[in-house]
């Protein structure tokens, strides 16, 4: 593999030609590797949507489940003599749990990111950042386990809620899963703000917290928003935590003290035992496609925000 030494008697033109061919071949292979990411995303779209397609095309499936029915049927009772595939209670459940998770994780993560980038001494930061990476490294099934076995009892004893596994419990556990995402993106954005901004603000007589709150945070706002959006996408798609901690009752109520069922948990709980190709199977893939679309839109928005931040700071 080392470069061939030029020896007399070797046909140089031929050698060059072979080398160029090889270079081109390798470039082609690497290009194919890069394409695998595109192909992966496309295949996910195609194959998740494909399995959901019978809802729109097959008369046999439509006898049980129709697209319109998802939004007009009030209940989710897929195993029944007359299966009912109403996804409104599931959408409400998803929204409830995600909302709880965001309400708790966003303020904590943004404030902690401000602390890490603006106020903390280097030594404190050296404790904080690995801790967050540890939290990020805890598998979600472990967080779900913790919420199921330990946290649910604490929360019940504090709130006195009659239902032990509820949206609040799942949302709080989920906020632990989301925190690292929001924190990391926010902190990166805050640290990307040029030093000159802060120096100018301090020189004008503002205190450190005024600088952090009125100058640094607004300058990084696009990045903070991106962090929040990425956290939102993660929260919406997270499965094991909500499957274990939410109680999974498909109720359409607004209270966070009621049990709730999410899109992701519904898929995880029901797919393993349904008959392949049955209406129920197609409906679960439809839920997956829906989940994919929701998170996809959020992620695209977050990507646009990050680009904007980069451009703004580069222009500054």
């Amino acid at each position: 593999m080392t470069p061939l030494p030029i020896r007399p008697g070797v046909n140089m033109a031929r050698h060059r030609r072979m080398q160029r061919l090889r270079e081109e071949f390798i470039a082609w292979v690497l290009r194919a590797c890069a394409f695998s990411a595109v192909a992966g995303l496309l295949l996910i779209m195609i194959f998740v949507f494909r399995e959901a397609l019978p809802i729109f095309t097959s008369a046999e499936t439509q006898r049980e489940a129709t697209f319109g029915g998802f939004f007009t049927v009030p209940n989710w009772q897929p195993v029944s003599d007359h299966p009912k595939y109403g996804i409104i209670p599931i959408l409400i459940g998803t929204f409830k749990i995600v909302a709880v998770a965001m309400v708790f994780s966003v303020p904590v993560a943004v404030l902690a990111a401000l602390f890490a980038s603006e106020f903390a001494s280097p030594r404190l930061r050296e404790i904080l950042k690995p801790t967050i990476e540890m939290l990020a490294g805890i598998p979600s099934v472990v967080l779900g386990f913790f919420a199921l076995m330990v946290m649910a009892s604490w929360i019940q004893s504090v709130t006195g809620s009659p239902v032990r596994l509820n949206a609040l419990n799942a949302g709080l556990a989920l906020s632990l899963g989301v925190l690292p995402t929001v924190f990391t993106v926010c902190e990166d954005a805050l640290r990307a703000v040029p030093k000159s901004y802060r120096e100018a603000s301090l020189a004008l007589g503002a205190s450190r917290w005024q600088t952090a709150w009125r100058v640094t945070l607004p300058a990084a706002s696009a990045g903070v928003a991106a962090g929040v959006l990425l956290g939102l996408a993660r929260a919406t798609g997270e499965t094991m935590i909500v499957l274990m901690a939410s109680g999974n009752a498909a109720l359409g109520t607004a209270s966070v003290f009621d049990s709730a069922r999410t899109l992701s948990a519904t898929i995880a709980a029901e797919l393993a035992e349904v008959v392949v190709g049955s209406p129920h199977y197609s409906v679960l893939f439809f839920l997956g496609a829906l989940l994919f679309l929701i998170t996809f839109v959020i992620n695209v928005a977050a990507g646009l925000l990050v680009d904007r931040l980069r451009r703004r700071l580069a222009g500054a």
Partner: protein
Amino acid sequence: MKRKGFASILLVLTFLVSAQAAFAGRGITVKGSDTMVILGQRWAEQYMNQNAGQIVQVTGGGSGTGIAALINGTTDICQSSRPMKQDEKLKLRDRYQTMGVEVPVAKDGLSVFLHESNPVKDLTIEQLKGIYTGTITNWKQVGGRDATIILYGRENSSGTYGFFKDNVLAGRDFAASCQTLPGTAAVVNAVSRDPNGIGYGGAAYTKGVRDCAVRKDAKSPAIMPTAATVHDGSYPLTRYLYYYLRKPAQGDVKKFLAWVLSPAGQKLAVDVGYYPLK
């Protein structure tokens, strides 16, 4: 670097080739209900101990998965905690021109779990139906404390869910407020921590909660799920656990089935927490 890469490719290739060989020599395969996987496993272990050279492989995945595997031809025996459905039988008929062979292999009592502190001692099927369909919502209505009833149940894909729905709810839908948990252990765990909770699941599971006696109707006696009452069928929530085959058993499969139904096999079912057929 290059050589390492080559070696790893070779390794993977060997792995792939060995796939076929390993698959061919698997002996009898049993697949299906997660409720029964432990029972099946114990049977397989004992049977293999007593019959050298015989191989029985047991895997779970759920009753639905097992039946699908039976239809697809990937398993010799399917273990199921619910009877096969009509459309599944039709699929089997389309492929193999048989309606399948159903072999009950053990009995199971479905317990109704209450919290240790719950003063309610027994419930009728009618009351259970009311509780789980949502028409009875307070323990007061069935002679208990003045507290909201918290419902726990199994995921709608499980055989236990189907049995309860057919035999207690008479086919009606569960109340939406019923929390569906992914396993019987999760149900037991939830009820054991919830003074106003009620749950149901295989009788083999009752640890940390109290069994509720069940009456067939208001005039019938209240019966606890015990070995005797499940055995003689006086406990109303008794179900069979099944082995399904595509066609009548032959050869090794027949030998294994005969052993499962023999006293030695049935005793093992009792050890695991189920009840014998006879």
